[in-house]
């Protein structure tokens, strides 16, 4: 089976998924972007610049680390962590942000817009825009804008304009819609730097292309360390960018099994989760056909996850295709399982995984004991966990952090401002 050629293709359909379901005004904009992208990746200079910046700016290659303590503790397979959290800005998002910024520059665009949920993609976008001197506007649901103040602050420090979106649920979906509306109103001068493998063609193919370096590095690294290929690959799935990044290079290695982990939130029987393959159905929104959490009329549902990066009603079209063709298996992790996984990884290996990536860790914990000691699992630690400080301290009801915040606030209100 030739999955790799199906998953990155110029036409943008993956089986019946994907496509380019956009208002006519965006059709030429998407077509131009598609052409520019497929031309660029044939250009040695473009690839050379991308590789150079990965070495000197983002920090590639990232390590593949053998989690010996965790492996011993779970008593089964050998567990390896691909540590994308060590990248500049702390997550794999910089991979496609850098790639797309180079495309935008190549197309002569002066202005970049992006959507963001928790702010990680917005931060990575603001970062590359600062580096390339591009004007940057980031749309963020008003709720996320309020609860992710640290990232809003960092984006502003990088020179970006962050716009709170007050429509709808005021979360990621509304931010995507607002970004699309911005693009519709100023299509010629703007590049929309979409932050996952969702959206209309060419975004799924383009972002997969820029993320596939994760799996390519893993192939060499695991060969060096074990002399073979991994038995299992595990990644969390929000839109699907880090999962496709890890999986892509191994898609045609039939013996390599793959598991995507969705956000089970507070349980998939209720409404508070983002498990599209457990409870969703086929739909068309935000420019593409895929699985969405929606009601019987086709109205998209509100979602929940402890990790903002997985809190989205849709999933990338290639991911839906790989699910339908059974190449990738899907499971989910509940918020509470994610918190224990987060703590276990910290205590056994000294690594704070992002809450998104901790979904993958939760699956590793379930799977590893059932495997043999000579089998291997590679999971993607797609981001580092220090960004989740406020969520984690709240979940763990950390009294010290609460009084720290109270003291900081008192200090600020006194007007000293120099804490």
């Amino acid at each position: 089976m030739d999955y790799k050629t199906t998953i990155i293709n110029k036409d943008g359909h993956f089986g019946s998924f994907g496509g380019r379901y956009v208002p006519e005004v965006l059709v030429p904009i998407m077509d131009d972007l598609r052409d520019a992208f497929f031309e660029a990746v044939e250009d040695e200079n473009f690839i050379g610049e991308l590789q150079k910046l990965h070495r000197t700016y983002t920090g590639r290659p990232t390590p593949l680390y053998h989690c010996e303590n965790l492996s011993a503790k779970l008593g089964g397979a050998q567990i390896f962590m691909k540590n994308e959290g060590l990248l500049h800005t702390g997550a794999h998002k910089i991979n496609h942000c850098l790639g797309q910024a180079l495309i935008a520059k190549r197309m002569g665009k002066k202005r970049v817009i992006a959507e963001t949920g928790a702010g990680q993609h917005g931060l990575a976008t603001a970062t590359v825009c600062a580096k390339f001197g591009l004007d940057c506007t980031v749309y963020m649901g008003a709720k996320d804008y309020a609860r992710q103040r640290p990232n809003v602050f960092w984006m502003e420090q990088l020179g970006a304009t962050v716009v709170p979106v007050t429509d709808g649920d005021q979360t990621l979906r509304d931010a995507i819609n607002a970004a699309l509306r911005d693009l519709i109103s100023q299509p010629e001068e703007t590049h929309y730097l979409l932050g996952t493998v969702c959206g209309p063609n060419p975004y799924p193919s383009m972002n997969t292309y820029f993320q596939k370096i994760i799996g390519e590095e893993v192939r060499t690294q695991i060969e060096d360390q074990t002399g073979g290929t991994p038995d299992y690959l595990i990644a969390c799935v929000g839109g699907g960018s880090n999962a496709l990044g890890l999986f892509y290079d191994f898609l045609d290695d039939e013996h390599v099994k793959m598991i995507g982990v969705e956000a089970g939130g507070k349980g998939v029987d209720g409404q508070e989760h983002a498990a599209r393959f457990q409870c969703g159905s086929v739909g068309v929104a935000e420019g593409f056909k895929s699985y969405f959490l929606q009601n019987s009329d086709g109205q998209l549902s509100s979602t929940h996850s402890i990790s903002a990066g997985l809190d989205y009603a849709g999933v990338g079209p290639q991911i839906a295709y790989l699910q339908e063709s059974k190449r990738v298996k899907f499971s989910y992790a509940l918020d509470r399982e994610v918190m224990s996984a987060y703590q276990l990884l910290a205590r056994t290996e000294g690594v704070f995984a992002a809450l998104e990536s901790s979904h993958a860790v939760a699956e590793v914990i379930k799977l590893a004991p059932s495997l043999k000691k000579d089998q291997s699992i590679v999971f993607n630690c797609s981001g580092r966990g220090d960004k989740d400080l406020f969520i984690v301290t709240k979940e763990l009801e950390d009294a010290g952090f609460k009084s720290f915040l109270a003291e900081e606030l008192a200090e600020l209100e006194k007007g000293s401002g120099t804490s």
Partner: protein
Amino acid sequence: MKKLNSQLDRIQSSGKPGFMMHMVAGYPDLKRSEKIATQILESGAALLEVQIPFSDPVADGPVIARANELALKNGVTVEGSLLVIERIAASTEKPILIMTYFNIIQNYGVEQFCKRAAEIGVQGLIVPDYPYDEEQDNSLIKYSHENDLALIQVIASTSRADRINEIVKHASGFIYCMARTGITGRKTDINLQTIKYLESVRASSDLPMAVGFGLSERSQVQELKNYAQIMVVGSALIKEYADIPIDKGLQQIKKFMIGLIDV
């Protein structure tokens, strides 16, 4: 499509532009939206475009997006919208078109939706996020055709010549030209570029042309009437009755339309 075609013929032969007014089913609620439809039709609209609300209306500007959101918050369903549209269509000789996003249609079932729309007297569909090149897996053009519905094709000012030539091949009823790049509801300045664009569409098809997106004033209509037969007005009309009591809203609709239409 009979009602639609005869209305288009009437507009063509009158030498005056016809107005297609847009409204959202279930905004502010189902009962009042029916009254609003009646008022719009009585105030001189030639065609009525009724939107079935959707949770993610990307092609709509803030005014219409908010109307979608409020309608859904009030519990408006696709079935409820269709029942209102059915009553509106039964009450008038003027053509009624459904505007909605493709997800609503695909969840209903494309074939079933087209059948139902035809059964309730709807003359055509406007689906802003369904470019003709997605037809293969979806068959919306096919089932619209089979059910004698016009699937209105949209052309944008950014559309290129070869694309325009392809789009018009799939067109029926009339061609919908977006007068500007941009989302609905922001005022459009009509300049030489707009005129050139409309002329290029004119040269590619014999179908009547509608022009919309950003129309709110009589002066704009004056400038455009030599280039298009149908003027589409959406956000500007909703602004007239948003957030005010219904009786006052209906008066406002009448006043606004008299001001706009009497060219």
